């Protein structure tokens, strides 16, 4: 006779699921605007009346030691840290900009494991501490241009992706680099429910050509504003490619795989006419539904700040233009 005795771990799993279901319902209701006061007015004062939050746990960040890298940095006005960490597109934690900071507080990043595999001589696995200690960290102040036509200026802390790839020694046959975000529906409400996650097929995947990946501007970031990354910004490690639209800069990376074929990329799969593989910032090539000629720079000043500025080719990083001299940028958007 077979009697299934529930193990202790089963029970706790059920409890976790209940919590998740509760959280999912809350997310769906919120997205319907039922909690519009708290959803819309994401201000400290409005947060006080958000009775539904259960914020016992707060995601911890820690100071990082790093060197400045002025030659890679812009001296434009920084986007305040509070905005960088509260205005995020990270659909794994919900589709509205204020969802990630709210839903990612309990995200666990230690232990972590990120692998560099595929067409390399020397596959690597990095644990949480390795991510922070294997390479000297630099501060690079980059512009970030979102495909939705807003932008920020962010002081990242990290190391060039090239340093990591060189350590893994790409084979001659490697032409592309594929990236993958953590898949963990228990922790990521957007991966549990299509409604919360914006209809994306998870895990989120991205890709670069090998020469793009090896470019000195291409950064693996483990921090911002001198501290380890907040969960909603892609902790513990994320890609930053400043001349491409923000969705290329994949967050919470667990896998980097060198390949000989162009890897699939999430937004391109979802809407191939709207989002290409390259996604280079380009004021001359509009998104089918909106213009890319201008952007609104998010800094301070509120509603009346005159923050609309022209968008520059390659987001102002003209030094990458050489990578694309044989490419029709209109067709390869």
């Amino acid at each position, binding site marked *: 006779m077979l009697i299934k005795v529930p193990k202790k771990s089963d029970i706790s799993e059920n409890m976790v699921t209940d919590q998740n279901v509760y959280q999912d319902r809350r997310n*769906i209701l919120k*997205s*319907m*605007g039922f909690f*519009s006061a708290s959803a*819309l*007015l*994401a*201000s*400290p*004062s*409005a947060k006080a009346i958000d009775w539904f939050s259960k914020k016992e746990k707060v995601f911890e960040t820690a100071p990082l030691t790093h060197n400045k890298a002025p030659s890679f940095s812009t001296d434009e006005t920084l986007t305040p840290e509070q*905005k960088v960490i*509260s*205005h995020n597109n990270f*659909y794994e934690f919900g*589709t*509205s*900009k*204020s969802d990630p900071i709210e839903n990612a507080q309990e995200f666990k990043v230690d232990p972590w494991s990120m692998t560099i595999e595929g067409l390399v001589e020397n596959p690597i696995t990095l644990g949480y501490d390795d991510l922070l200690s294997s390479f000297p960290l630099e501060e690079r102040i980059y512009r970030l241009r979102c495909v*939705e036509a*807003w932008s920020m200026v962010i002081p990242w802390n990290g190391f060039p992706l090239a340093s990591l790839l060189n350590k893994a020694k790409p084979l001659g046959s490697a032409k592309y680099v594929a990236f993958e975000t953590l898949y963990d529906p228990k922790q990521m409400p957007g991966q549990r429910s299509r*409604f919360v996650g*914006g*209809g*994306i097929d998870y895990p989120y995947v991205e890709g670069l050509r090998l020469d793009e990946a090896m470019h000195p501007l291409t950064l693996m970031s483990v921090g911002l504003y001198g501290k380890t990354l907040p969960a909603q910004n892609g902790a513990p490690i994320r890609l930053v490619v400043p001349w491409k639209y923000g969705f290329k800069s994949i967050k919470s990376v667990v896998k980097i795989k060198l390949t000989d074929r162009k890897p699939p990329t999430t937004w391109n799969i*979802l*809407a191939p006419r709207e989002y290409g593989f390259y996604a280079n910032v380009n004021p001359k090539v509009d998104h089918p*539904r*909106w*213009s890319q*000629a*201008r952007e*609104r720079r*998010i800094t*301070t*000043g*509120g*509603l*009346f700040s*005159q*923050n*609309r500025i022209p968008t520059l080719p390659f987001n102002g990083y003209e030094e990458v233009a050489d990578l694309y001299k044989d490419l029709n940028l209109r067709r390869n958007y």
Partner: protein
Amino acid sequence: MSPGRLIWFKVLIHLGALLPLIWTFYLASIDQLGGDPVESLLHFTGISAFNLLLLSLLTSPLAKMLKQAALIKVRRLLGLYAFFYALVHFLSFIFFELQFEWQFLIAEIIDRPYITVGFVALLILFSLALTSTRKSQITLGKKWQALHNWVYLAGILIALHYIWSVKSDILQPVIYWVLLLLVLFMRKDKLDRWLKKRKKNLA
């Protein structure tokens, strides 16, 4: 509903429509409306306009169901506020999103289907607001009802505008489509009559 109660009800509607708008503008002006106050403002004014329009469409079926004929008296007010919010939405787009780059406005209205349908909806709401007085009702006679039936088309265009404006998070716009279709269904008899009439006119 007694006349006294009705007045209080209208006062409540005025407060309910105006206070959140003033509060939202205040928060946006001191940069306390999320990371990007312009986006929050566009969402708030757009959704609120849609909510108010749906409410105004609901008043007459509700009045019938609840046998509260006096409810009809707030329909115009709700409709006017729907237009008012839509106008603030449109002006916010020009003032804070485009920041007065007028050449972009024309291009957007022509080139971007979701803006085009939003603009047409706004024009419809505008003409309904202009003719919402008792006086126009009398002068226009039968034509008044025909004109005001365009509100259903406006509803559909707004639902279209909404679902076209999002990147991939279509849950909320789909819910609004369902709400709109429910409201249209509640007024099905009227729509039927209207469609029949149109057919007759065509024939």
